[in-house]
């Protein structure tokens, strides 16, 4: 198709979607020249990606093993939602924006100015003068990282923060040691697919005793049609180090579904702590359930060292389908795992999300707080596993799963699994279901609050245990995002 025609089609599609969908302000499309490999997925594709990225042979071998394993696996259809079938041959597995004068990918100076503008429009300024203070950003556009800010500043304290591509090139010993050590390529269907075709992502390494002076963050943007985004993030916190990491995601509004299959691995050694926060706002499809991102993500942390700590905080407000269970393997004695989640579904979104806490070490503790909000004709499920291994003397878990329903066409489900193999464990589980109804709204309005204020008060009240875990600006953003999504759905 000639390029001009494609653009017209895209603009029209976007306009139509804008009319039928609630205000999704990130739904625009960036018209940019790309370097894109043909659709299809074979061993040849794997070779092509690896070559494009100038990867060493060991990386290619690993991808190939993953791919061969993936071919033996079947798409999971046990979650509480319907999707697909996904035609894996109909996607392009590598789409990178072309750089200025053929300069290197991943360098802000050679990045197409159109892209810098795109990220600015998304509220993520990358240029030296405008960039955010206190937050280092790695910006991932389709298949590649287009730039990472504050690298020099971080390097001064020994923190490595770069794209996965750069990490494979510059720090192969670290990547070799840790990549796949928490989520092996054989872990599940989508993790295997990711291991075979992943094209970029972020890498963070916090050396011994360092408290990372900045928040680190990655912003993921899917732009191209009929493509997928497959990124890997790897964060390693050495002894007694600390880092807070944030992740944001958006995509244009399109009629067809796009696939996002990411893998995130976190590793904490003795006394280290990683706080990982996500605000996920992928395009979720229109009222009729047309379009939106299929979000199949494997996130897992391993508290390798004693007294180490990993916490996942997520606000999941987008995607047509969310399949995501950020988990913690509590291997070190006295290690702590936390999971705080708000999952909001509207229109015809389907979410099956939760966590796994695997207690192996002695006196390990885990906390799970999950808040599901469903409205319109959406379907929202919590699925969680608390597993106490025979070695985990004195393990403790507290889980709380609350669901809120708005309207009467949506549904909420809770699937808590508990496996205890040690008698000294103490587990608590609380669950509730509530509804926002017109009477509550009228009650608050009759006291002087407008509709927006009333909903915000109720949602804030419902989610406060999770929001208080988010970094300040992120919490404000999250509240606004939920309010916007819920506008017009109560009454």
């Amino acid at each position: 198709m000639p390029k001009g025609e494609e653009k017209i089609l895209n603009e029209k599609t976007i306009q139509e979607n804008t009319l039928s969908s609630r205000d999704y302000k990130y739904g625009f499309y960036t018209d940019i020249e790309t370097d894109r490999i043909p659709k299809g997925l074979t061993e040849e594709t794997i070779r092509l990606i690896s070559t494009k990225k100038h990867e060493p042979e060991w990386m290619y071998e690993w991808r190939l093993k993953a791919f061969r394993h993936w071919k033996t696996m079947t798409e999971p259809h046990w979650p509480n939602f319907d999707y697909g079938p996904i035609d894996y041959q109909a996607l392009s597995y590598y789409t990178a924006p072309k750089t200025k004068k053929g300069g290197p990918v991943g360098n802000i100076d050679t990045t197409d100015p159109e892209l810098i503008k795109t990220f600015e429009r998304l509220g993520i300024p990358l240029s030296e003068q405008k960039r955010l203070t206190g937050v280092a950003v790695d910006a991932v556009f389709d298949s590649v990282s287009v730039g990472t800010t504050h690298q020099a500043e971080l390097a001064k304290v020994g923190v490595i923060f770069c794209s996965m591509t750069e990490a494979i090139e510059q720090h192969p010993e670290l990547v070799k040691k840790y990549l796949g050590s928490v989520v092996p390529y054989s872990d599940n269907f989508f993790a295997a697919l990711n291991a075979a075709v992943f094209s970029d992502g972020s890498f963070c390494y916090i050396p011994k005793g360092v408290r990372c002076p900045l928040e680190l963050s990655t912003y993921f943007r899917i732009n191209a049609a009929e493509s997928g985004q497959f990124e890997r993030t790897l964060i390693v916190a050495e002894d007694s180090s600390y880092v807070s990491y944030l992740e944001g995601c958006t995509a244009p509004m399109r009629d067809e579904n796009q696939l996002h299959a990411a893998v995130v691995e976190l590793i904490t050694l003795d006394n280290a702590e990683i706080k990982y926060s996500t605000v996920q706002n992928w395009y979720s499809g229109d009222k009729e359930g047309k379009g939106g991102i299929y979000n199949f993500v494997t996130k897992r942390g391993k508290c390798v060292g004693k007294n180490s700590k990993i916490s996942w905080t997520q606000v999941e407000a987008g995607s047509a389908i969310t399949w995501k269970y950020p988990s913690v393997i509590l291997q070190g004695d006295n290690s702590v795992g936390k999971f705080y989640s708000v999952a909001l579904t509207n229109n015809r979104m389907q979410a099956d999300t939760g966590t796994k806490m695997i207690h192996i070490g002695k006196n390990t503790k885990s906390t799970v707080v999950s808040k599901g909000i469903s409205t319109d004709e959406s379907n929202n499920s919590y699925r969680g596993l608390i597993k106490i291994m025979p070695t985990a003397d004195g393990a403790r878990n507290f889980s709380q799963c609350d669901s809120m329903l708005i309207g009467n066409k949506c549904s909420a489900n809770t699937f808590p699994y508990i496996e205890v193999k040690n008698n000294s464990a103490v587990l608590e589980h609380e669950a509730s279901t509530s509804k926002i109804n017109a009477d509550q709204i009228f009650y608050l309005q009759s006291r002087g609050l407008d509709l927006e204020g009333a909903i915000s008060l109720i949602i804030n009240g419902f989610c406060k245990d999770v929001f208080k875990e988010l970094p300040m600006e992120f919490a404000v953003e999250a509240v606004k995002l939920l309010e916007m999504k819920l506008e017009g759905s109560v009454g």
Partner: protein
Amino acid sequence: MIEIRNLHAGIEGTPILKGINLTINTGEVHAIMGPNGSGKSTLSKVIAGHPQYEVTEGEIIYDVNFKKVNIIDLAAEERAREGIFLAFQYPVEIPGVNTAVFLRAAFNEICKHQGADEMDPIDFDEYIRSKMKILEMDEKYISRAVNVDFSGGEKKRNEIMQMAVLNPRFAVLDETDSGLDIDSMRIVADGVNKLRNKNNAMLVITHYQRLLNYIVPDFVHILQDGKIVRTAGKELALAVEEKGYDWLKEGK
């Protein structure tokens, strides 16, 4: 203060109020009595601006900035910000929302609208505690979720406490006595009496004359089948207590 003229209203096409005329002046307390289904609660919701009720005819004229304004088209929150308050017959539970946080948000919305300074959490805490004393409410209620796990009586006290905090010019008390034992009723009535002054007005809706021994009204109106069929002084309530409502039916 407020003048209701030929008010017709209903819900989902069913007419309930069929021509209400009622004038309440500043400093007055009026009571409305009437049998079940006569439209008492509908009247209270229509005054407060409940969006589900449809006004088909008539006006509600209310003093806004010393001007008489028809408030029919104002949203519930706009009426509240102009000083109209409804003490609910069935106060609504709002899980997760802290009572003090909620009331401060409401109080500050009203302040903002009236051009007054908003109150910070510390000053507000002191302010709300002083109002809770009037209703002999335990301080633990302000840190709880709005009306959640409150007994029926506590919910009603909480309504009047909110009225004390928000300090409305015109308050409608919808069956505030129902579900209250005699001691609680006395406390609530005392609270209401303390809030009564020459600058505000109240409309007390009740089934029983009992409450009116404590909150003594200037006028009593009898509502039947969506219309006010009789208006008199407080002695009318006693007559109803004795003889029921039938003798007041139209045409008798």
